[in-house]
């Protein structure tokens, strides 16, 4: 756990200069907010792992078994990746960054916390994971409505997708990994396309079709894939997750997740 904590801190410190390179107060604000949230989460992780080592005598990542330590670590990792209800920093931070740094934040920065989440998944409180997942999916769908800034829209999309990944973690971690991989692919596509078009608002997307029809079509397909519309790739993880939830006798949870996916699809389609 100590080495994992060190790795997370180095990861945070490394991206801070990349975020602040724009020399604009909004970039500095985003960097400060990101640093504060990540440092808080890292401190919580260190605290929880130390507590577990003190009570159980074990520093191994997948041997964390003290209930309070496990809950604290889960909440800290949720804060790290931006799961609801610890998601408030993500839209503001993404809005203050340029598209390239936003891409790194949305994709690469999720890998390290997820590696830890996957390792502790068997010891985590199932109710907590379900709550985090459902809340994230709902908040991601609700928050993304009426967003006109594309970076904030993708931030809420990220929150919703993270909800889907977390909810299935306790039943089938392989699906979480699949969902994460597909999410990273789709989000990278979106960010890179927006970077080529240099557009950060919905208005500029609306005027893009005569200038770059191919890229506009690609963006449209990526958005529909993010929304989980068949037969695109984004439908597959959602379908498998709903199937697994149904097998685990959680129809209400599956229904709520499907409804929240409809919310997300609504703003993607617009």
């Amino acid at each position, binding site marked *: 756990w100590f080495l994992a904590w060190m790795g997370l801190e180095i990861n945070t410190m490394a991206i801070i200069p990349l975020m602040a390179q724009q020399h604009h*107060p909004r970039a500095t604000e985003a960097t400060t907010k990101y640093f504060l949230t990540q440092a808080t989460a890292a401190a919580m992780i260190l605290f929880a792992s130390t507590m577990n080592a003190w009570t159980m005598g074990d520093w191994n990542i997948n041997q964390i078994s003290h209930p309070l330590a496990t809950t604290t670590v889960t909440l800290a990792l949720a804060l790290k990746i931006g799961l609801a209800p610890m998601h408030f920093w993500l839209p503001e931070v993404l809005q203050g960054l340029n598209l390239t740094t936003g891409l790194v934040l949305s994709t690469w920065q999720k890998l390290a916390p997820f590696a830890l989440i996957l390792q502790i998944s068997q010891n985590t409180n199932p109710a907590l994971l379900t709550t985090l997942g459902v809340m994230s999916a709902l908040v991601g769908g609700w928050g993304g*409505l*009426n967003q006109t800034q594309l970076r904030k829209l993708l931030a809420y999309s990220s929150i919703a997708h993270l909800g889907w990944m977390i909810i299935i973690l306790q039943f089938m971690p392989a699906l979480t990994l699949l969902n994460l991989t597909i999410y990273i692919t789709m989000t990278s596509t979106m960010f890179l396309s927006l970077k080529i078009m240099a557009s950060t608002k919905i208005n500029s997307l609306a005027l893009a079709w005569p200038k770059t029809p191919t890229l506009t079509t690609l963006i449209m397909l990526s958005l529909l894939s993010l929304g989980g519309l068949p037969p695109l790739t984004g439908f597959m993880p959602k379908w498998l997750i709903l199937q697994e939830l149904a097998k685990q006798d959680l129809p209400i949870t599956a229904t709520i997740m499907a409804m929240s996916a409809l919310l997300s699809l609504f703003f993607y389609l617009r």
Partner: protein
Amino acid sequence: MALTSARLLTRTVHEKWICAHSLTLRPLVCINKAAFYGEYRRPGQAQDRTPPWKKIRFSFAKGVQGIRKHFGLLKDEAMERWVGPQGRPLIEHMLEQTRVQWEFRGPESLEQWLVSTDREIGGRSEAYLKLGRNDSACMLYGTLCSTPPRDGETCYSGYCTLRSRQLLSSFDRKKNIDWSSFNTLYIRLRGDGRPWMINIAAETYFSHQKDDLYNYFLYTRGGPYWQDVKIPFSKFFLSSRGRIQDNQHPLWLDKVSTIGFTLGDKADGPFQLEIDFIAVCNDRAHTEEFAYEMYKRNPEV
């Protein structure tokens, strides 16, 4: 005796230092002691040491009224969300190329504005805001007097300003204006030939940014005809506490707080400014992102 001489000597040296310092730097306010950053008190005014709980004026009726008002606003915000951004359909947002943000068509429009002058620091300027003829414009009028107050500290005076109030949503949360679809400020006004300054304040995060404003000049023509002023947002430059900053950056339009007009041209006498509306528009021909050099200070050789 030696001690008295030493005290006299140090006091003389200290006074000479302050005198030399103030002469060379010529600050806006001649200060004898360091002023606490962000706190301005009129000279001679004692610091307010009243504890916060003694300032509360509890009123049950007002409390109930406030609760009703804020929950009503919250409900409206939740309902607006189903319609579209800022309560308007998304198609309107996508297609709009102009938006009138403030227009003066009735007495309630004047309540969105604050007028202030150097009276707050002891000056003698006056400014008033009223509706124009046929309730079709507002008129800001008054008299400037650049005589500084005789308080031993203030060196300069003679300004007045008209600033929009910060928009508030439910529970007095700040609400910012999103002008990111537009790139030009469009104002229809009629002045008296005096030069004004337009100040736009955006949402800030750090405490040292609280006095950051984005300024540009507004030269009025005077005369009977209305003047249409179009200023691209790329022309606005950053200043803090009235001083232009070396590190310039463009104004980000997604979180604009207030707009203001300031007159401080060191000319004593009456002034008058009529404003019909303040709008924003999207000038497709204007592609400049920022008008000023963003040079690096201390570049590597």
